């Protein structure tokens, strides 16, 4: 297990390097704003712009710039300096991360709590009216764009512009450390909106997986042993059926930790996603690099966690300590 984890970490580092190099190259290959011009204003003289390019190190060759950047990360965990915000990228990321983590983890808990009972009921009551109603509802929430649902939620329930002013609206985010009560209140609407669409997907996935699992031999064996149906479903069926759900959960949580752009935008949550979008708008390469690296890191880390969780969820999964050709055996 330890060797397996070490290998995965190593592969993760290589992946991060590749992602970083790709972002760097794409920034220069694709048309984008020139950071020096954005900083100086467009009626600045070419000489002034050249001076700024020199100051920012943009006049050096691409490999040299990339090497300087990598050296900064490895030796000092220095992610660079934002051209636009005039602040260290590390500071910006650290400042934005709590909002993204709060949004993602809260929403993930919510959508798992909503999706699991719906998925189980639908699977066990297959082709009944309950199944049809629940799955149709899931389809509706999956189809509704998050941005639109967010706007509708605000127009209906926000305490400043809503028809039924029940919950704090856009721009009300307060850090947990500052006021836990306000933090909770400010995230209820974003959590519900973000969790809604994911809950639909997860409910449908769990239903399919559970239907498949419940027809397996080991379920029949469990029933033959005289175990209660409740125990068969929850301990044997759901536990195994959750494996693909956990896989998806890992990927989704990783991606969202890299920035839930639409939800953060509509609710004005100061998270990583909004930081990344602003950086793209302002051709702020160091921040783009930082947010992309953060997103890649979270996806890799979440997948690693998922692989470990497999072993606990599904007794058939055991990681080999000696295998050199595969990372897991079932």
């Amino acid at each position: 297990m330890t060797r397996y984890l070490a290998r995965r970490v190593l592969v993760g580092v290589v992946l991060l390097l590749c992602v970083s190099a790709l972002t760097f190259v794409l920034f220069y290959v694709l048309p984008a704003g020139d950071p020096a011009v954005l900083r100086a204003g467009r009626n600045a003289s070419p000489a002034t712009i050249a001076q700024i390019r020199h100051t920012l190190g943009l006049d050096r060759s691409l490999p040299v710039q990339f090497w300087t950047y990598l050296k900064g990360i490895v030796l000092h965990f220095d992610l660079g300096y934002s051209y636009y915000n005039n602040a260290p990228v590390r500071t910006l990321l650290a400042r934005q991360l709590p909002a993204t983590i709060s949004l993602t983890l809260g929403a993930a808990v919510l959508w798992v709590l909503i999706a699991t009972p719906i998925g189980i009921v639908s699977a066990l009551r297959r082709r009944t009216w309950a199944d049809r109603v629940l799955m149709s509802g899931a389809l509706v929430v999956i189809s509704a764009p998050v941005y639109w649902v967010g706007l509708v939620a605000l127009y209906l329930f926000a305490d400043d512009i809503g028809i039924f002013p029940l919950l704090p609206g856009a721009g009300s985010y307060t850090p947990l450390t500052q006021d836990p009560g306000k933090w909770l209140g400010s995230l209820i609407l974003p959590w519900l909106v973000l969790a809604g669409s994911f809950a639909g997907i997860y409910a449908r996935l769990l239903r399919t997986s559970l239907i498949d699992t419940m027809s397996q031999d080991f379920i029949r064996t469990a029933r033959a042993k005289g175990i209660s149906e409740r125990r068969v479903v929850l301990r044997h069926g759901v536990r195994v059926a959750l494996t693909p759900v956990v896989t998806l959960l890992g990927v989704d949580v990783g991606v969202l930790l890299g920035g839930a752009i639409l939800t953060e935008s509509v609710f004005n949550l100061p998270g990583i996603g909004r930081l990344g979008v602003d950086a793209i708008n302002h051709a702020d390469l160091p921040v783009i690099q930082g947010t992309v690296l953060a997103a890649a890191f979270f996806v890799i880390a979440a997948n690693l966690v998922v692989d470990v969780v497999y072993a606990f969820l599904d007794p058939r999964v055991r990681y080999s300590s000696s295998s050199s050709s595969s990372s897991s055996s079932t």
Partner: protein
Amino acid sequence: MPRTAPARALVAGLLCLALVPALAACGSGEKNSATSTTATTDNGSGGRRGGTLKVLSEEDFGNLDPGNTYSSAALELLSAVDRPLYSYAPNNPTDIVPDLAAAAPKIAPDGKTVTVRIRSGVHFGPPVNREVTSRDVKYAIERGFNPSVANGYAPTYYGDVIGAARATGGPIIGIETPDPHTIVFRLTRPTGTVLAQATTLPLSAPVPQEYAARFDDVRGTSEYGNHQVATGPYMFAADRDGNELNVGITPNRGVRLVRNPNWSASTDDRPAYLDEIDWSVGNDPNIAGRQVLDGNDMSLGDTPTAAIVKRAVENNQGQIYFSPGAGSRYAALNTQIPPFDNADVRKALAAALDRDQMRLVRGGAMIGDIATHFLYPGVAGFDEAGGMRGPGYDFLASPAGDPAVARKYMVAAGYPSGRYTGDQTIDIVGDSGDPSNKDAELVEDAARSLGFKTKLRLLDSNVMYEQYCAVPRARVEICPTVGWSRDFADPQTVLDAAFNGATIAPKYNSNWPQLDDPRINAAMKQAEVVVDQQERARAWANIDRMVTSTAAAIPWLWDRQPVVSSADVRCAYQLWNQGHCDLAYSSLK
């Protein structure tokens, strides 16, 4: 300054069709008037003291260093924090008034020396706390040439100061401080009048060298912006050491201004009614607009969307104001390559263009006046250049376009049928943001109506400028959606960089039509050194007429900026800066 990225948000989606019930002026044929705004301007006097004004915007500020920043929102913010030598009262966009200065600038008759007396009793805010001297102004301007600060406009407006050409942040010999309350600028050319007006920009706001040097003397970017010291009525909230990053300046979240304890009302004309200003960024424009209209103590920091303008005009008329003089828009025609190297072809396109329709897709008459030349309302020389009616050239006489005049010029250009008969395809590169994309399409329609084959490319505003319109070797024939807004009231700031042949550069070119007319270049060289303000206005008005007569660019809109505030906000509109609330003059009712 050129109209840049924020322009993509300007009047986004302001479709007149959606506004027809509300905007009676929509449609062709309404009078072209600069006075049809819905509120009168206010200098804020007699306001109520106290309270917190919340400003909501979508755009972040970026760098807030007074030695570097240039955006309209940053100028609005810094006008409450810093005291440059001179500034504008919110309701007077043309006449500079002493700010840190004690009196009007003394410009020597030869225009080569500018002397400014500085007020006594103005103190820096915490943590510096001492009295401001002329040496602080000298350092502030000198640091603008430091590569770590890299001010974009310093070489343009302070470049004639003796020694500035080689300045890299150290002392400039042409800036003298004979005593703590006098600063003297000695120039190589008689450009004192422009320099005096340029001191309204934040670069002339004092910076204490003993405190700022540690942030400036670095390889890389100066961090003074996150540790800046206030002289105005407000300061960025800071910790005990003066650090403002993540305290009063939080990137991606906003800024918080609090009262500067060292500011003395006896040294300032600003009333500074508000106790605090809380400016949050990253707001969705539709939601923020509704929050402002329905809520209290709020103002919108950037341009409202079409839906919000419609809602305000229909239901909240006292809460919206259309500020004149917010800039100009024009279509630049490449004068260096065929077919627009022929002035008659350019005039034909100008005559064919339906500028009325171009304004209509933005919202009609409320959103601006149809431009007839390049000096726009609020810039000195506007009246002398012809005012709203313009210089009277026939190819710009009809806002809706005049096919007969267009045909006349095509015939004069050598196309007897009145239509282009060559096989060249015209490359048109416009801004993809709504409604600029529609304006670009209307210019394409006009070109097609003259028989041109066209290729329209709609791109992000930054890409449009930096890869095409500002790069002569890209050989773009028409840039239909470029524009300009002034740096200060002097007409040179509108015409020089935009139409002087000497400014044409292989990259970062701001003379988009690449107009290089020896007569115009010579006239600009002469006008740059005219000292008397009235004479300057006349000289630049004459240049404006000359530029307009070439049809190198087709002026199509003089913008009015819609500004939205809550019902209990008494907004003193900053007419010199896109019309948003002047934070040091506005109050809560």
